[in-house]
C-alpha cells in the first residue's frame, strides 16, 4: 500500500504525463519530498517557503489540507491526495 497522489494536467510535465503517482511519508511535507525525489521540480511548483503556494489546493481524501494542518498534515497508506489549481466559481 502507498498514498495515491492525483496530479492536475498542468503539472504532469513533472510526472511524465501520469495522472496519478504513488508516494510515501508520514506527513504531507514528507510525501511531497518523496515525490520530488522521483519527479524533480514538483515540490517547487507546490510549495513556497513554509506553506503551499497561493494558487495550489491540496486535498486529503477530499478535505482541504489548509484546514487539517497544512504541510504537517498526517498522511497514511491508503489515503488519496488530490492536487488542483485554484479556480474561480460563481
Amino acid at each position, binding site marked *: 500500500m502507498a498514498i495515491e497522489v492525483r496530479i*492536475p*494536467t*498542468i*503539472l504532469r510535465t513533472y510526472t511524465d504525463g501520469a495522472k496519478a503517482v504513488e508516494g510515501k511519508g508520514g506527513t504531507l511535507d514528507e510525501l511531497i519530498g518523496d515525490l520530488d525525489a522521483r519527479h524533480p521540480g514538483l515540490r517547487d*511548483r507546490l510549495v513556497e517557503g513554509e506553506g503551499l*503556494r*497561493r*494558487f*495550489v*489546493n491540496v*486535498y486529503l481524501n*477530499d*478535505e*482541504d489540507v*489548509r*484546514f*487539517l494542518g497544512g504541510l504537517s498534515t498526517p498522511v497514511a497508506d491508503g489515503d488519496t491526495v*488530490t492536487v*488542483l*489549481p*485554484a*479556480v*474561480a*466559481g*460563481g
Partner: protein
Amino acid sequence: MRFDSLLDSVGRTPMVGLPRLSPSADVRIWAKLEDRNPTGSVKDRPALWMVAQAEKDGLLRPGCTILEPTSGNTGISLAMAARLKGYRLICVMPENTSAERAQLLRMWGAEIIFSPAAGGSNEAVRVAKGLAAEHPDWVMLYQYGNEANSRAHYETTGPEILADLPSVTHFVAGLGTTGTLMGVGRYLREHVPGVSVVAAEPRYGELVYGLRNVDEGFVPELYDESVLTTRFSVGSHDALRRTRELLAEEGIFAGISTGASLHAALGMAAKAVKAGERADIVFLVADGGWKYLSTGAYEGELEEAEDRLDGHLWA
C-alpha cells in the same frame, strides 16, 4: 406575503427539514430553499445588493452599462434587475455552461460574450477585466471582490437562518465567489459559539483546470480562510448522486451544486452521530434543477450522467 414589486420579494426563503435523510432525532439536516427567489437562485440577494450599493455610490446612473463575469446565476439575477432598473447588461460567461443559462440571460435582455471553455470562470474573469479596461464607462460590479456580495448574506441570509433555527450547529454551502459562506459564516460565528462553517467546492473535469501554469490560478478577493471551519472538494459523481437522492428521498428538485453541499452536510452529520453529539445542519439549496435538465443530470445511469457532465461548469 405581499410586496410592492418583484425586487422587494427577494429573500425570506423557507427552511425545510429533511426527515428521511437526517440520521436521527438528534442529528438533523435542514435545507434553506434559495431557489425560491425571483429568478430561482441565491444570487438574487448579492446581485440586488451590489446594484443598490453601486447606485448609492453614484457609479450606476440610468442608462449605464453593467459588465459582469458570471457562470450563470449572478448574470441571470443581474439581468432581471437591470431590465427593471433600466441598465444595459453584458455578461462574460464560459462557453461550457448549460444552454438554459444563455437562454435565460437573453430572455431578460442581457448580452453575452462567451469566454473559452478551457480555464472555466478564470477565463471569464480575465476577459471581463480586459473589457473593463477598454471601456472605462462600463461598470463592472465584480462579484468576486465586491463587499456588497458577502454583506447581502451577512444582513439577510444569516439572520434568517438564525431566526428560523436558533439551535443551528453547522452551515454548509457551495464555494464559488465565497460570498455566501463569508457573509453567513461571519454572521453565525458572531452569534453562535462553536458553529461550523463548511464549504463544498465543486471539483470539475480536467478541462476546467486547463491553465497554462499554477500561477494563473484564482482566489476571490472576498475569500477569508479564517471564516471557514473546513472545506471539501466534491466531484461530479458525488454531487449528482446526492442531487438525485435529495429528489428521491425528500422531493426537492435542486441544481447540481446543491448535491455537492448535501454531500458535505451528510458527511458532517455522520461525524456528529459517530461523536454522539447533537447537530442541526443547515445546507443551502443554491438553485433548482430546471437550468440543468439539458445536461441529462436527472435521468439514466449515474455514470452516463457523469460523463455527460464532464467539462461542464455545473455550479
